[in-house]
């Protein structure tokens, strides 16, 4: 698949790639596909190979952990402008959660093997891509910590340790 001007433009417009030069966006667009998901559709399932990640353009995606016999536990909800899919960065390179579209959702998917072929010999491009994940993970970690604090306040965690 050759560089796709339209996709390259869409990539450059997405918040995740803010500040990335258009040359790099064009190169990465070779790995990109525009995808549509219906409400309720699973984008990926826990345990399957994390072979692509997604930039959400419209809609909303729930990250959840399924528990037999109970409602799934919601880990996070991601909206337009956010990046979906961190597991491709870390062993064992399999999705840690289910991702389900809870509205009609449009996303650009980027295929990992293709991306690697672009950045493997180009540390500057690799850095450009990886460094964008850091503030995303920091935000999500901060959100998790806020929820932990809320829980601690609720459940009177401060009873004395025996």
């Amino acid at each position, binding site marked *: 698949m050759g560089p796709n001007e339209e996709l390259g433009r869409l990539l450059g417009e997405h918040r995740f790639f803010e500040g990335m030069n258009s040359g790099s966006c064009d190169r990465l667009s070779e790995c990109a596909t525009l995808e549509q998901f219906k409400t309720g559709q699973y984008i990926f399932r826990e345990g399957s190979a994390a072979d692509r990640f997604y930039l959400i353009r419209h809609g909303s995606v729930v990250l959840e952990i*399924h528990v037999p*016999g109970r409602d799934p536990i919601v880990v996070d909800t991601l909206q337009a402008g956010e990046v979906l899919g961190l597991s491709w960065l870390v062993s*064992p390179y399999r999705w840690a959660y289910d991702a389900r579209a809870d509205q009609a959702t449009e996303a650009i998917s980027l295929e990992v093997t293709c991306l690697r072929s672009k950045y493997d010999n180009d540390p500057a491009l690799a850095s450009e891509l990886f460094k964008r994940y850091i503030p995303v993970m920091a935000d999500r970690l901060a959100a998790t910590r806020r929820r932990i604090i809320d829980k601690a306040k609720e459940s009177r965690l*401060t009873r004395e*340790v*025996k």
Partner: protein
Amino acid sequence: MASLADPSAPLSEYTSLSRQDTGDFFGAEPMLPVPYRIHKRRQELSDTFTLELTPADGSHSLPFGPGQFNMLYAFGAGEVPVSISGNPANPATLIHTIRAVGPVTEALWDLKSGDVLGVRGPFGTDWPVAEAEGSDVVIVAGGIGLAPLRPAIYHVLNQREKYGDVCIYYGARTPEDILYRAELEKWRGQFDLTVDVTVDRATGKWAGKVGVVTRLLARGGFDPLQTIALVCGPEIMMRYAIKSLNQHGVANDRIYVSMERNMKCAIGFCGHCQLGPYFICKDGPVFRFDRIEPLFEIRQL
């Protein structure tokens, strides 16, 4: 290992008694509970308690294998499967650790020393303590999951020389939720054992580890190619423990889990506990993980 398929097979390695022999105890009626009297009730955690029981008529408690369970019957409330938590080498007192989470366990919660409840069993499959001889043993337990594993721990410690490196890794929600804490501290003091405990969160007073139980595996202490892993806890915890064991090099055919699903008859008849082609009550609750792996992820539709 107990098996309905062959009623003359021994109930466990702890006894030559078979289901045929114990038919007398059941009155040839495995659906009939035997009355047991509580001779001690111990509060373990804010919602978890242990009952020590002996048969009300003064007869002997049945021997059991580590991993097996009984159906406990609270008069007026109903029945619930509970793993046996005692020492299989000393079955005279039947020990059950129970978490109060529903109407039957709440009814059991209200019982006091001297009260009587009904016991049917033992049922189900053992932890592979015999197969694990000669291997390293890694026990990964979470929350109440330490209770069904304790008999296996007792067995391994009683026959320590038959096993390689032994590691016990335990995770709980907070320090107040650590089950059998005094016993864990005692085991930790043994020189021929690795014991490590972590909690999901704690107040500043806690001096131990905070983090997911799978991080304890990074500490090592076992040879993944020569290890048998025994895993028990809530299903999500078992899923990520297995993932982590795989990442550390332990294959699925060397990992055993204890499954819990709704049981009714406990003898492979009613189908309530069916998991694919298996009945958890008689083909489990202990399963070798590779045998049930495709079923483990089944989502309710």
